[in-house]
């Protein structure tokens, strides 16, 4: 025990032979992995090119400039048959983004309501919410989409029997029609006013927060914000002379011409995606709320906070930390599930681009790769946004 190590390298670890050295092995292993992977991709590429050449399948992205020649039911940008395949890609992409965006908002709202309902004191509400969740999330989404599409179509009246409000809004099995706003000259000022209002609100919130910290006085931020966001654009609108008109839908022989519309495919898809995803979100919300320790609610009651304040200031912020990560993956699922649109004819990216365009051009490799790249990008974007939000909500410990 008392032995002092003698000076010099007596106990220096002996250098292991290179095949046992972890560092060397690690490098060899990685290089090997790279080589195998490279060989794998090279073989696939080689095979694919050889196969395509042998079968006379054209390659490259030149097809994107060729005229598509088929119609698309719904487009957020102007589109007709003479536009290019590249344009069909954009049309499908925008439709996918639209349904995913709306679906995420609606599913979040419904999911939170259901999640809270499952914890309700009212036995009937709690049980119904439970039954809903257990039924909906255990049936394949594709089946539900089929079901809701038929249900939506059968519930809506024919075009002649449209439900109409003042000949401006029509609801029938061709969709929901509403007047299309047409922005006249000078309307740009209104948009500018809107942006100014948003900026003002951000500043106001910051200032109110600082005042609260400094003096303890509260400032009615909410009402002030509403005043700003409505008032400023309205003032600007009136100042430039109200340059806004509407194009009304007009009943013709087969259709309602003009106006703007929401097609039933979108309604059904949105409805099904919302119902399905909300069932999962409800479970996440419920778990999140249950995860907040009971002591927290008791403490906030002891501080004299009202029930609504307890929920708003104490429970929800803490529950959100548990909720956000699984919520993110539900958002991703919803976006990916929107690709089932192809089953009911909603013209999303998969239906328009990986369906019809692929059929017409036969360029499977390019089209499938582009489609997958788009979904990957959307998924990564959603993950990014939710991660930023998560970081803001995360527990900051000293």
């Amino acid at each position: 025990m008392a032995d002092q190590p003698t000076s010099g390298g007596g106990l220096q670890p002996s250098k292991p032979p290179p095949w046992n050295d972890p560092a060397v092995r690690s490098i060899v292993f990685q290089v090997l992995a790279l080589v195998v992977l490279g060989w794998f991709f090279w073989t696939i590429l080689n095979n694919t090119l050889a196969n395509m050449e042998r079968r006379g399948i054209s390659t490259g992205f030149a097809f994107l400039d060729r005229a598509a020649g088929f119609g698309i039911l719904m487009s957020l940008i102007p589109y007709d048959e003479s536009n290019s395949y590249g344009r069909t890609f954009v049309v499908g992409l925008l439709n996918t983004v639209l349904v995913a965006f709306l679906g995420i908002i609606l599913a979040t709202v419904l999911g939170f309501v259901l999640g809270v309902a499952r914890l309700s004191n009212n036995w009937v509400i709690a049980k119904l919410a439970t039954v809903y969740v257990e039924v909906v999330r255990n049936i394949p989404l594709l089946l539900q989409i089929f079901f809701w599409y038929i249900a939506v179509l059968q519930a809506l009246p024919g075009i002649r029997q449209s439900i109409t409000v003042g000949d401006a809004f029509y609801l029938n099995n061709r969709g929901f029609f509403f007047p299309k706003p047409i922005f006249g000259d000078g309307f740009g000022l209104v948009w500018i006013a809107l942006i100014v209002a948003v900026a003002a609100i951000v500043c106001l919130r910051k200032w109110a927060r600082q005042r609260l910290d400094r003096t303890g006085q509260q400032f009615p931020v909410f009402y002030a914000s509403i005043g700003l966001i409505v008032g400023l654009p309205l003032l600007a609108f009136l100042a430039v002379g109200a340059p806004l008109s509407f194009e009304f839908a007009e009943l013709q022989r087969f259709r309602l011409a003009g106006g703007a519309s929401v097609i039933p495919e979108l309604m059904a898809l949105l409805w099904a995606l919302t119902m399905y995803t909300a069932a999962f979100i409800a479970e996440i919300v419920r778990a999140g709320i249950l995860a907040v320790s009971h002591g927290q609610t008791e403490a906030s009651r002891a501080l004299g906070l009202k029930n609504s304040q307890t929920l708003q200031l104490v429970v929800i912020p803490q529950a959100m930390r548990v909720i956000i990560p699984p919520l993110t993956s539900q958002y991703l699922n919803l976006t990916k599930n929107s690709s089932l649109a192809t089953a009911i004819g909603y013209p999303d990216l998969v239906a328009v681009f990986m369906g019809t365009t692929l059929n017409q051009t036969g360029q499977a490799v390019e089209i499938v790769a582009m489609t997958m790249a788009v979904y990957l990008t959307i998924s990564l974007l959603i993950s990014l946004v939710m991660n930023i939000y998560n970081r803001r909500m995360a527990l900051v410990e000293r």
Partner: protein
Amino acid sequence: MTTAWQPSPSLPPPASTVGAVGWARSNLFSTWLSSVFTVVLSLVTVYFLWQILDWGIFSADLAGKDQSACDGDGACWVFVKDRFNFFIYGFYPDAEQWRVNVMFFLLAALIFPQFFENAPYKKALGWIFLTVYPVVSGVLLLGGAFGLEFVDTDKWGGLMLTLVLSYVGIVAALPIGILLALGRRSEMPVIRTICVAFIELWRGVPLISVLFMASVMLPLFLPEGTNFNKLLRALIGITMFQSAYMAEVVRGGLQAIPRGQYEAAAALGLGYWRSMWLVILPQALKLVIPGIVNTFIALFKDTTLVLIIGLFEVLGGVQSAIIDPAWQNVAAEGFFFAAFVYWIFCFGMSRYSQALERKLDTGHHR
């Protein structure tokens, strides 16, 4: 002046909180708003329940052989009865269907004990489920050996195909998923990058595009002259897709293992693979069984998508049966049947995973 002390009148007894009345008061009619909800929702529920029962049972037709047996109001279960064999076995020849039944039976026999806390040989049965069972059922279903007639995969369909797809998807994805999860936590940057890229790629795209890729692009990847059978292509796609999800589930388990376990394994002189195989994975995998079951449920539902590439699983079988001109207006019955089949399986499995979670969860609760 004295006044006689007058006791103030006694308060009424507190509302009963026990018994049926007490329960109803606190759970159904606690507030005015709550009472309204209770009444309205109950009425709506009863109404819809009645409608569904009337359609599905009271006015339904079950006897008979064809369309003429259905009188129009109520469900026409005759159709489901007529096509039941197709929905379960697909095109599998009638004479050979006992083989599918044996597969079903073995599956049930292997899984059933897992639901019980202290069933004997649970672990052994679990291993058989993951290793021996796939071989046996593969031989059984495909045939061509031991005097069994060869039944090609184009004859497979219905519930049997759904089970094959989801079972193979999970069992094949499990080892790949474990390797990917280990790779993702590896200290070697190249390995880690490859694994992360693989996982995020498959998790970022919809299954429908993966199946599409498997059915349309995969034949182009292979050297001239080789080709995969369609079912195998779909299985490859599903396995790739599923292994990425599996990797994330397993990673969750690996992260839950305290550092001390890794260090203890290293201190015992175990190398990387042995410490993983003997110390870390047994603990981690036990933790993630509920997660694995949940991904299995998701996959089970997702197998419906193979109808888009022309394989007849339950929903695909229903769809192709509906278009038969011999039957009319039977879509609702067909879809209801499919929904019921999926629901039974998924609900059962989700109950199982919830029970497991409760068992594994030793945290404190109120």
